[in-house]
């Protein structure tokens, strides 16, 4: 009897340390990872993970509680979106109008690169033709006048 008592007590002690029976231990890393994607509702530009306000604290508590109840990180995020709308997510989802935020910077970067490429090509061609050559003869002069007139309408 007493021999069985010690391991039993040890087991109870271990279970008590882990927490209530059946509840999976919630990793603070997961809480932080979810919090980092959610906007702290009173601080606008801070995430729930970084803000130190009472609200952010309570929101972290709710994340912890939902995870402990068996929700997946996606379900926890879905819960906040259901209550606050997509606004609560710090990164807008890649769909609809929000897609612009994801696409425009790359389109602008690409367009800028193409523009720079075209300009550099033009400049290098121009500087090559500007190298000292034979003095312009009458025909060349006429061509210069014609082209300048063309450029300045």
């Amino acid at each position: 009897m007493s021999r069985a008592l010690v391991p039993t007590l040890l087991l109870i002690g271990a279970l008590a340390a882990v927490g209530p029976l059946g509840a999976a231990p919630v990793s603070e890393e997961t809480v932080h990872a979810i919090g980092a994607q959610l906007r702290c509702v009173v601080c606008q530009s801070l995430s729930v993970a970084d803000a130190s306000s009472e609200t952010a604290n309570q929101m972290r508590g709710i994340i912890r509680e939902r995870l402990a109840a068996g929700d997946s990180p996606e379900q926890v995020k879905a819960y906040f979106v259901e209550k606050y709308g997509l606004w609560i997510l710090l990164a807008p989802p890649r769909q609809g109008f929000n897609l612009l935020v994801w696409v425009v910077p790359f389109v602008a970067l690409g367009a800028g690169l193409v523009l720079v490429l075209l300009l550099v090509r033009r400049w290098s061609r121009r500087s090559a033709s500007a190298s000292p050559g034979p003095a312009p003869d009458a025909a060349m002069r006429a061509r210069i006048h014609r082209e300048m007139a063309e450029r300045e309408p």
Partner: protein
Amino acid sequence: MSTRSRALRWAIPLAVVPVLALLAYGFRTDPRDIPSPLVGKPASPFALTAFDGKPVSLETLRGKIVIVNFWASWCVPACYDEAPSLERAWQAYRDRGVVLVGVNIQDKEEPARRFLTQFGHTFPNAPDPSGRVSVDYGVYGVPETFFIDRTGRVRFKQVGGVTDEIMKRQVEKLLAEPA
């Protein structure tokens, strides 16, 4: 080359147009005006203990028009400005199947109690220490007031303080609906 360079000359100012249009759209919207996804949806149930020790739950108020007001004693001046209108609406409509519930969030007990005494609020008021009710209602600032119809659906959300006119308009609208 000359037609290409002419096209290029136009490409730069033309590229500015969509950017300007996007900025014009963006700066015209108010970043604080966030539409609540909860309007039209069933109100989340809650069960709190009021400052006077009595239980307050949405479940027991089924079939009534319920107005839930989120407030805090530090919310100056909006919560102070709207406080008299809340009590007036409660007095005017309490006999017509309308219940007003105050939920005190992000606050400390003592100043919250002082606030209730100052305005002589007689409708149920309860603290939400875990913040769960305020997240369930998607509250991001105080004051916010939710109008819940007899079927338990959120019908209107007032962001910022209420006035006598707002209370009257919203409550009369819900009262006019068949019970």
